[in-house]
């Protein structure tokens, strides 16, 4: 079988969704871990240093290219699958099946993914664009100059209730997307062993709750002034 045939078949496309999905899940771990440096209560010193490392070291910069490629592939493939799946039933039912047998969020991955895309547009314009393209204010830490990404966070979130709410909604969309996506990715990759399924499902629920919660706490904490 040719590579092109393999990855354009329905199962092959789902494998790409699963693999990119797991890659993005791994990225979330890195992202939430680095961002958690704001909770060091040191006026953003640790966070700015971490952000500086991510921006100046070659390894994360190369991985960043992979990250954007992964997001794009996951998005484009996701939309393309959503469209072709919808088109597989031209005439629908008068009485919808609804939630008789499946969870609403498992049927709404396309919608949740689109909401996440909209969130990403806002999120990238808030932080990635200033730190990589338009520039950030400098801050001196221990005599060395750093980009003040921490200051940018304060500026985006403090006093901007609307933005904080949008970020919390983004985290909610992420939670629902992960709640189905985490375990679904492993099933797509062929996991059938009962022991592992139980492990993946439990880990998936924990991950889907804890990671978005940790992310949501960041703008909320900044808005409420919990972080010094």
């Amino acid at each position, binding site marked *: *079988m040719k590579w092109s*045939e*393999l990855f354009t*078949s*329905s*199962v*092959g*496309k*789902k*494998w790409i969704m699963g693999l990119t999905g797991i890659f993005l899940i791994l990225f979330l771990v890195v992202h939430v871990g680095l961002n958690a440096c704001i909770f060091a209560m040191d006026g953003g010193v640790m966070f700015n240093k971490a952000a500086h490392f991510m921006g100046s070291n070659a390894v994360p910069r190369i991985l960043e290219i992979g990250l954007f490629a992964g997001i794009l592939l996951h998005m484009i493939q996701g939309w393309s*699958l959503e469209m*072709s*799946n*919808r*088109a*597989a*039933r*031209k*005439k*629908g*039912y*008068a*009485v*919808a*099946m*609804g939630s*008789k*047998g*499946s*969870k609403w969020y*498992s*049927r709404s*991955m396309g919608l949740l993914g689109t909401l996440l895309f909209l969130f990403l547009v806002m999120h990238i314009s808030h932080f990635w664009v200033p730190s990589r393209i338009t520039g950030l204010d400098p801050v001196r830490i221990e005599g060395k100059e750093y980009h003040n990404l921490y200051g940018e966070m304060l500026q985006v979130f403090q006093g901007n209730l609307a933005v904080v709410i949008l970020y919390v909604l983004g985290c909610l969309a992420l939670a629902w997307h992960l709640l*189905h996506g985490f*375990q*679904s990715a492993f*099933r*797509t*990759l*062929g*996991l*059938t062993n009962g022991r592992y*399924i139980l492990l993946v499902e439990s880990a998936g629920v924990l991950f889907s709750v804890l990671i978005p919660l940790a992310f949501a706490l960041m703008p909320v904490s900044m808005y409420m002034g919990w972080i010094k």
Partner: protein
Amino acid sequence: MQHYTMNLTLKVWRQKNAGDNGHFETYPVKDISSEMSFLEMIDVLNEQLIKDGKEPIAFDHDCREGICGMCSMYINGRPHGPWQQNTTCQLHMRAYQDGDTIVVEPWRANAFPVIKDLMVDRSAFDRIIQAGGYISVNTGNAVDANATPIEKDKADEAFAAAACIGCGACVAACKNSSAMLFVGAKVSHLALLPQGSPERKNRALNMVTQMDKEGFGACTNTGACEAVCPKGISIENIARLNREYMMAGLTEDK
């Protein structure tokens, strides 16, 4: 449970032929026994229609004992009606109360075009089976049943997958009109047995290729198929198909 009779309102999809646009027709049905099967209730309605000089409702049915996979009605928003692990022919009218309105639709999927009224063309499933859902053996005397030893667990798993009657409820229930539960069951039941192993790789590749050609959607693991399957085929079979297909696709050169 006490026997009772009921009067119902039926909204049934009527479509003259594949080219017709089709529409819902409302019929009152009277004095239906709670002991009747759903199809017997439709029989009663059809006799009334014939008496009135109208065209009876066309619908698929054969064994009427829940094992052939011919009956195929989408009843009040669920394939095979409200009961779990049940076919339409085994749905009994005690599931309903006097005065209920029941909406009956055909399976909906591009790959299952309506032939007439509630009958759909499910030959797409036959073509998927023809693509690889078999084992090639020399004909002759039947082989001794215990000639090939098979672990009990594997035999049970293969048997559970082989229980699929190919009714198509999985496709009808799936938001993507995906046939992955059907194909997963067919691939699994042979992949789990030694007899299926010589053609294992090509089977998975060819059956998925045919499935895609027929216009079924891709699987998003929502689980709706498993929930409506009259034979309780596990969604685990889909994961196994994903694995079988990829392992074959990554290693087969042709």
